[in-house]
């Protein structure tokens, strides 16, 4: 563990990236989904990943907590290399929260139980303490009055806010968002983005796959554009939107911004 402590200490001083991809490659059978991904994210950075569907952006994000395995290259998260070591994977997953496109709340548990499950079983927190923590985060996403309902009784926007609160309950160092607003009605997108903006303002390290370019402009430290399994371009939002370097980026931006 001393190696990790050293790595963590370096991390705190901002010397080392909290997430690092080195020559990462991944295949689905014959299909080459991630090609030579080299990328690093510093602590507290907010990264927005965009690109056409099938470009590998979700896959790349899901490699960070090893919901997907990569076949070549090195991914280091929080000073731990992601490999088949189950202990390492469990350690990382404790520290990395994730929010999915389809919320993936547990429909057989109440909202409160959805939130307290991981703190109780993974962090071994006493039930009472976990419930207090859960109510704290539910209040932050402005949904505390629904704590005893079931996910099926909530609107999509409410469910996604619960999902964010559920991720936060593990008090993670990194939050991953995989198209968090893509399955929502236009009216509900704002309430979810508001929560995410607030979270970003508090300094959470965030990796967010999204098509919400407004969110990218206001919140992101860097915007990453992917196509065909490669990172085409990564830049600060100002530069990225006003002065894209690649023609592929230009085409993508013209298509999503002019409709």
């Amino acid at each position, binding site marked *: 563990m001393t190696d990790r402590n050293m790595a963590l200490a370096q991390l705190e001083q901002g010397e080392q990236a909290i997430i690092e991809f080195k020559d990462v490659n991944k295949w689905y059978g014959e299909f080459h989904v991630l090609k030579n991904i080299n990328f690093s994210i510093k602590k507290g950075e907010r990264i927005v990943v965009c690109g056409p569907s099938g470009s590998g952006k979700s896959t790349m994000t899901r490699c960070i907590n090893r*919901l997907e395995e990569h076949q070549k290259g090195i991914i280091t998260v929080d000073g731990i290399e992601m490999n088949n070591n189950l202990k390492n994977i469990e350690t990382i997953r404790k520290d990395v929260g994730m929010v999915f496109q389809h919320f993936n709340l547990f429909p057989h548990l109440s909202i409160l139980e959805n939130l307290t*499950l991981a703190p109780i*079983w993974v962090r071994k927190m006493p039930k009472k303490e976990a419930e207090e923590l859960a109510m704290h985060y539910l209040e932050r996403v402005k949904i505390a009055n629904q704590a005893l309902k079931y996910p099926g*009784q909530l609107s999509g926007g409410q469910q996604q806010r619960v999902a964010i609160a559920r991720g936060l309950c*593990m008090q993670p160092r990194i939050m991953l968002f995989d198209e968090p607003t893509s399955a929502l009605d236009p009216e509900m997108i704002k309430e979810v983005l508001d929560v995410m903006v607030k979270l970003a303002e508090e300094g959470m390290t965030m990796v967010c796959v999204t098509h919400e370019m407004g969110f990218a402009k206001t919140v992101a430290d860097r915007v990453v554009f992917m196509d065909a399994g490669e990172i085409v371009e990564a830049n600060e939002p100002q530069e990225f939107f006003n002065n894209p370097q690649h023609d592929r980026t230009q085409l993508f931006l013209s298509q999503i911004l002019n409709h």
Partner: protein
Amino acid sequence: MAIEFKPSPSLPPPSTAVGPVAWVRHNLLSSPLNIILTIFSLYILYLLIPPLIEWGVINATWTGSSNKACTGSGACWAFINSYFEQFMYGFYPSDQTWRVNLALVILVLLVAMFAIKKINRFYLTLVIILPYPILAYYLFSGGAFGLEPVETAKWGGLFLTILLGVIGIVASFPLGALLALGRRSNMPVAKAVCVIFIETIRAVPLITILFMASVMIPLFLPDGLNFNKLLRVLIGIVLFSSAYMAEVIRGGLQAIPKGQYEAADAMGLTYWQSMSLIILPQALKLVIPGIVNTFIGLFKDTTLVYIVGMFDFLGRIQAANHDTNWLGTTVEGYVFAAFVYWAFCFGMSRYSMALERKLETGHKRN
């Protein structure tokens, strides 16, 4: 100023929309075809019910010591009456049957305690699956605490049927869940073992397994090493139904969206935590009808132990039919058997429906 909107007051519905009249109109007389079907059904009932009541109640004989007592044209319930104790307990000594009843009453009380909110369900379940069977075993077989020993060969009747059914159900359920998880496991060895077990057992009739258990296994075992026939038969039944249970539960596991597995993984839950807290509770809820189906099938299949010389409820009735004092009472025996089996199976299916309603947590959206 804007005009204020006031909802109009609600009026009571017309008598054609609610109440018994509406029910009859809606369910029995809603279309010409429906009217014809209603009249036809009433006619069938008219043909069936009065003779049945005449046979089963009005002209029936209730008491007597042989078929000579049954002189009327109705059912000879005296047969059931005089054999009742054997139908219930087999050849269990009649002065000891209180032990069976006591075990059953304790079980019913324990299960009823699930309704009390204050009692922790987990501990109650532990009590039912750990100390209770030991207590029941000593009550049934005796030989300790000053209870007269009763060998298992004397166990029979409805007592044996319930014993086989309950143990079969309680043991095959967790075993089936493990087999289902194993079959979907990423570990090649575990997967292969589960697939081979399930496919082998499902390819063999229960009768074959019971024969194996009662006749073949003792042949292979070395002299002196032998264990109880009832136990061997029970193991056979449990293995048999666990294979079916596994496939039912696997169906439920496959219906759970991938996102649930991913959400559980992303939280850092271990495999067993995510299965027992997230996946199985949802999967089992989905397949309650299939599970209860298997249980009902198992309960009725236990009657096959008759073939290996054990007298369960139906077996005992069939044997009693050969009693020369009671010749000609076959129908009464089978009607009684049918009624008892129906009562148990109907109870199980009603319970499963109630359970489904209780576990419903709103719209299934993801």
